[in-house]
């Protein structure tokens, strides 16, 4: 603990003594390793089951003991062989039990330092520090998992101070805690009330599906035999209270009960996920970056360097749009955690709260009077082909006597109608310095892409678009998902050529 607390890297270590002061991870990391054993021991279950089935019951306890011992020893060795050094302008990390890995990361190359705390880490007062270097691939980014929270914050302050000190006078302040010249401004925060509203709009059918699937799956395992999705179970419940006769006469009550519980689960899961993810949401403007802290159990602290922002994405929903609620994401060189590719900087807000954030990254939102140009209706073709495929597949299944096959045509009809309807919402507008692309009817998504972020432009046409005089523009933009490239589909060739010329004329985003 004490040597980690000395993580204030301001002390010029190399002046005296030939041995620089290497540091280890926080000892509490070992406690974290025990917690992580929980999920990992699932891998061990088949072995236990095998032992059980073969009747070798006596070996189960020793086997589990050996597994625990081995895992803990491995964790301990890893901890022992992991050390890091915070130098004057670089971080050095050495790791590996058998194969040693030595990695040097200059402060200049660190784009982003993130601090993440899970539930257990918070109890232990430790945090995981991630260094985002912009190197390709998640596994290429180094992290310290985990060190004491205050030394994590000190480390980040040091690295930030170093970066912002590049242009300024080369005075090495020996107090990294010294606040930067301009104080941080609060751009956006979410209170419990706003989270509740956001959660209500976050009504989630996906979670419902998971719960439903789980209920089906664990039906035989649950101590009570009850499936909220099954009206018959509701009738059973009623029976216990002598209501069954009345219910049989009023079956719709059972239906309503099932529907109500569905709705309740949908809202509850929406609110719960919103609270867990965004509790205490704060977005502040720092000298060089936007900084976001959020999370109820897992608290994350992420900085998005303003100059690394490549594009802004405004997402809303068909329903919440009527109330003016939007979500703002920023596409940056660094990615946001494991799942998301873009940084969610405003989870849920009205446009007038989003505008100040957009101002900070120098991206303008098209106003209401903006005239949009539409993509050609041919963009529905892909969906229509999918619909035909689903229909044919379903009908083939029906012809083989599988009644579930009727889902195919029904699904095909839905997909077809959806894609035809959605095709009308593919729009784009050139705002001079940036291009706005809008798509989606169910979940309208507006991408604001500054011309200067575009690294390359594809002009695509094929045997369908060409006879119609159309072309698709695809933009190569740093960051974001490799699957969801920004594109303007099926616009007139002349307009595409013109837009391409204008975008390529833009100078690099400084």
């Amino acid at each position, binding site marked *: 603990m004490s040597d980690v607390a000395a993580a204030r890297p301001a002390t010029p270590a190399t002046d005296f003594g030939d041995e620089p002061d290497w540091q280890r991870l926080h000892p509490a990391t070992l406690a974290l390793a025990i917690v992580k054993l929980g999920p990992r021991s699932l891998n061990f279950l088949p072995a236990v089951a095998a032992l059980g089935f073969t009747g070798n019951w006596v070996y189960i306890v020793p086997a589990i003991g050996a597994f625990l011992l081995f895992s803990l020893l491995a964790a301990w060795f890893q901890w022992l062989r992991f050390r890091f050094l915070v130098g004057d302008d670089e971080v050095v990390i050495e790791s590996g039990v058998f194969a040693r890995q030595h990695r040097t990361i200059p402060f200049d190359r660190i784009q982003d330092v993130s601090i993440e705390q899970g539930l257990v880490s918070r109890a232990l007062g430790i945090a995981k520090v991630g260094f985002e270097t912009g190197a390709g691939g998640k596994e290429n980014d180094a992290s310290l998992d985990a060190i004491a929270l205050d030394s994590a914050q000190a480390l980040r302050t040091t690295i930030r101070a170093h970066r912002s000190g590049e242009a300024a006078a080369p005075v090495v302040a020996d107090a990294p805690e010294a606040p930067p010249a301009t104080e941080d401004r609060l751009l956006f925060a979410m209170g419990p009330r706003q989270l509740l509203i956001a959660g209500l709009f976050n009504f989630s059918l996906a979670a419902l599906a998971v719960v439903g699937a789980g209920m089906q799956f664990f039906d035989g395992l649950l101590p009570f035999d009850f499936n909220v999705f099954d009206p018959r179970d509701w009738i059973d419940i009623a029976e216990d209270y002598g209501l069954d006769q009345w219910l049989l006469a009023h079956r719709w009550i059972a239906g309503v009960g099932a529907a109500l519980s569905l709705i309740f689960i949908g809202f509850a899961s929406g609110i719960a996920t919103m609270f867990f993810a965004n509790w205490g949401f704060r977005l502040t403007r720092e000298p060089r970056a936007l900084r976001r802290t959020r999370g109820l159990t897992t608290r994350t602290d992420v900085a998005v360097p303003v100059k690394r922002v490549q594009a802004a994405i405004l997402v809303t929903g068909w329903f919440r749009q009527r109330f003016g609620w939007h979500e703002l994401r920023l596409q940056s*060189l660094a990615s946001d955690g494991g799942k998301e590719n873009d940084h969610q900087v405003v989870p849920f807000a009205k446009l007038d709260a989003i505008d100040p954030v957009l101002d900070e990254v120098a991206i303008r939102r098209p106003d209401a009077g903006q005239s949009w140009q539409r993509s050609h209706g041919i963009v529905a073709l892909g969906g229509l082909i999918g619909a035909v495929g689903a229909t044919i597949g379903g009908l083939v299944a029906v012809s083989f006597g599988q009644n579930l096959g009727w889902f195919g045509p029904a699904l095909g009809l839905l997909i077809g109608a959806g894609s035809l309807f959605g095709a009308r919402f593919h729009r784009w507008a050139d705002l001079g310095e940036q291009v706005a692309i809008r798509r989606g009817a169910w979940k309208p998504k507006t991408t604001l892409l500054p011309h200067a972020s*575009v*690294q*390359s*432009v*594809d*002009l*695509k*046409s*094929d*045997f369908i678009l*060409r006879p119609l*005089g159309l072309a698709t523009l*695809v*933009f*190569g*933009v*740093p*960051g*974001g*998902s*490799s699957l969801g*490239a*920004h594109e303007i589909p099926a616009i007139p*060739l002349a307009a595409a*050529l013109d837009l*391409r*010329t204008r975008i*390529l004329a833009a100078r*690099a985003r400084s």
Partner: protein
Amino acid sequence: MTDTPAHPTDPFDAEALNAAEGLDPVNPAYAQVLRIATALNLIPLAIGASVFDALLIRHIGGPYGLITAAAWVIAAIVIVSFPSRRVSRWGYKIGEGQLRVARGWLFRTDTIVPFVRVQHIDVGQGPIERWFGLSHLIVHTSGTHNSTVTLPGLHADLAAAMRETIRRHIQTDFA
């Protein structure tokens, strides 16, 4: 880039296609490279089909010889006629501070990379390409989409010269 209105271009005439879009064709020798590469891919497949035919179809008493014949005929057609067509649809233009690479006809993609946006450049040469004195140029950008843009079928000297051109631009624009 021409401003002429879109007129029907003969898709089977390489000169017409590239001229209409103001592009330079790649080295015709690249067709040989592609042909050999295609042959190396397809001949094992055809052999596999023949073996399958000999072992299985004869075993179950099916029409022996049909699959073998079809496999070799298709392979021959693809090896003889496709490479030169594919090559004729590659086009490039270097200049005005940008590299333009176009390929394909059924699905045509026309990529422009400004020199300023180039991260680094590779000139590569495979064994077959070396045989014909060709190289390919790979341009890396920082975009997630199009992180690499490849232009094959360049004479080795031309590829090196293009690399130097692009490199000079990267340097001049870095100030």
